[in-house]
């Protein structure tokens, strides 16, 4: 798998990865009508994963796959154990969303060595055993966020970002955002803060920044809880800072549509497409199990921008 080359946005279709071996193996299994597939979502405590899960379920039912979905609790150790559990239950393929690129390599490779087809979604692993990955292009998402900031700001404006560098997908967004924003000499990138997944912490960060810089023009929040916190602080301070969120959760859409209220500040959202991620990875698993090949080993689902124009869709 070569991921680096496929930085281009959009659904990238690389060479179909089909080897003699895998094809032969799947041919064997093809006799047994129904396949059993296992999924490990990052955390059931996140809307994003809940939406992916919903899409997975829908797709599995549509394709007639027997499925098991487990909660990885954002803990690689737990995911590692769960891969074992799914293996013990004779899944034909497993898809998981790793926490970060370091992934749960040994468990993935052990499962793969037992002939289980391994897939990743949302965030992949450095392991070569991964047959296919489907997930958001977070770096691109960060770039989109920066573009939105630039679109909404004028020369001389000061902007900030609230991130969560510990989470690798969020770090990618930071990378993309900073890549664009730092190249811009007429916009001052003034603050960066870590909200550690706690909306209340994001609120405090924003409050402190606004004390120092009441005219802060925009803040890019690399996660909806951060946007929620930032919004609360901005409203309380009576500032005019615009919020660009990330995730595309229902609350973001609701906020953007509320033009008389929250929509005055929360104007734009970089949306991931969790349903697309869920259904894509399920499709690819099915395709691999039935035909022995996938469309591409690295499918990026492009994030898109939600504004008042398309929020209602």
């Amino acid at each position, binding site marked *: 798998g070569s991921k680096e080359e496929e930085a281009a946005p959009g659904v990238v279709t690389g060479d179909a990865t089909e080897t003699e071996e895998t094809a032969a193996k799947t041919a064997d299994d093809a006799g047994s009508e129904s396949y059993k597939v296992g999924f490990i979502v990052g*955390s*059931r*405590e*996140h*809307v994003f*994963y*809940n939406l992916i899960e919903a899409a997975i379920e829908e797709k599995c039912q549509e394709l007639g796959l027997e499925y098991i979905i487990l909660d990885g609790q954002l803990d690689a150790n737990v995911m590692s154990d769960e891969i074992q559990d799914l293996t013990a239950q004779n899944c034909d393929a497993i898809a998981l969303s790793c926490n970060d690129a370091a992934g749960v390599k040994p468990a993935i490779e052990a499962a793969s060595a037992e002939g289980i087809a391994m897939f990743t979604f949302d965030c992949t692993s450095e392991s070569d055993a991964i047959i296919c990955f489907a997930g958001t292009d977070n770096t691109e998402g960060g770039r989109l966020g920066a573009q939105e900031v630039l679109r909404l700001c004028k020369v001389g404006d000061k902007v900030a970002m609230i991130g969560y560098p510990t989470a690798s997908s969020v770090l990618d967004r930071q990378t993309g955002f900073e890549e664009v924003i730092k190249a811009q000499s007429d916009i001052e990138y003034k*603050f*960066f*803060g*870590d909200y*550690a*997944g*706690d*909306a*209340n912490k994001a*609120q*405090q*960060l924003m*409050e*402190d*920044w606004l*004390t*120092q810089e009441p005219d802060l023009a925009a803040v890019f929040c690399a996660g*909806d*809880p951060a946007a*929620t*916190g930032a*919004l*609360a602080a901005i*409203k*309380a*301070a*009576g500032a005019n800072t615009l919020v660009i969120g990330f995730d595309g*959760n*229902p*609350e973001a859409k*609701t*906020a953007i549509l509320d033009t008389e*209220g929250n929509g005055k500040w929360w104007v734009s959202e970089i949306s991931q497409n969790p349903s697309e991620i869920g259904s894509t990875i399920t499709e690819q698993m099915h395709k691999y199990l039935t035909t022995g090949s996938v469309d591409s080993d690295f499918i990026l689902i492009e994030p898109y921008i939600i504004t008042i124009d398309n929020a209602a869709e």
Partner: protein
Amino acid sequence: MNSKIKRWVSKNVVVIVLIILCIVFGLSNDTFLSGRNLINLTSQMSINALLAAGLTFVIILGGIDISVGSVAALAGIASAMAGLLFPDMSIATSIVILIVSGVVVGGISGAINGLMITKFRVVPMITTLAMMSIARGLSYILTGGQPVYGLHNNFAWLGAGRLIKTESMPNGIIPVITIFTFIVVFLMHTLLSKTVFGRHVYAVGSNRQVAHLSGIHVNKVVFISHVLCGITAGLGGICVASKLQNGQPAACEGYEMFAIAATVLGGTSLVGGSGSVGRAIFGCAIIAVINNGMNLMQISSYWQKVVIVAIILAAVILDMSQKKNSK
């Protein structure tokens, strides 16, 4: 004279640390000592102050409650869900919804803790560890992991509103949450330091057997203290929900540690028998000042944690050694 100063210092380590911190941050950052930032500070320390106020009771009893963060989250969720039932709430309605949710959810959680401890004799650590998991689990089960959003703006009045609006500060100067916290803390402080019940709390914490033999209903005192601790945790949680204008199932995760730290910083001994709500608030102030100062100075959040802990430890050790000397 000299020994008098020494005694004063030993009694007020936490105040001195607070002043030193303020000076350091004031010198290294222009914004820190601005009136606006100081007012922000009072609102930022509010949640922790609410949690610590009730926790002080439990810790004086020689117990512990590590469920406060989770109970706060559950109360926040409950208030937000209740809030959704009133799409056009007035400020008054919102306050009623919030406070009732906080008191009921917090009170019930605290009562369960109290019951387990007094009736079933489960140690506080295990009881509240269980409550921590259960309350957090419920928050997720109730919400399916999604934040509860779409609340009326008035819902945010308690947590994010400000009073005394001026030309230069059109949103107001004094945070409502600060006033609310002040009232709750004042009530809790009064209850502990000025009432018979408060004295009984100290007595039970100091020597349970003596308290019992002096006719104090020990189990009742323990039970009520846990209920109070649950209620202030609940109130902390609804303040977060109001402040963010939504209910986050992941809210207040790990806040119990900050609350415990603040209480201990305020001189409340984990062995029980001594402590004060008022002083715990100084502990909260120290933690808030460090966070705020380091935010302003843009110091990485990883370092913030380490620095906070180092200061807490230093204060506790200083306090210990002072107490040893005076013995």
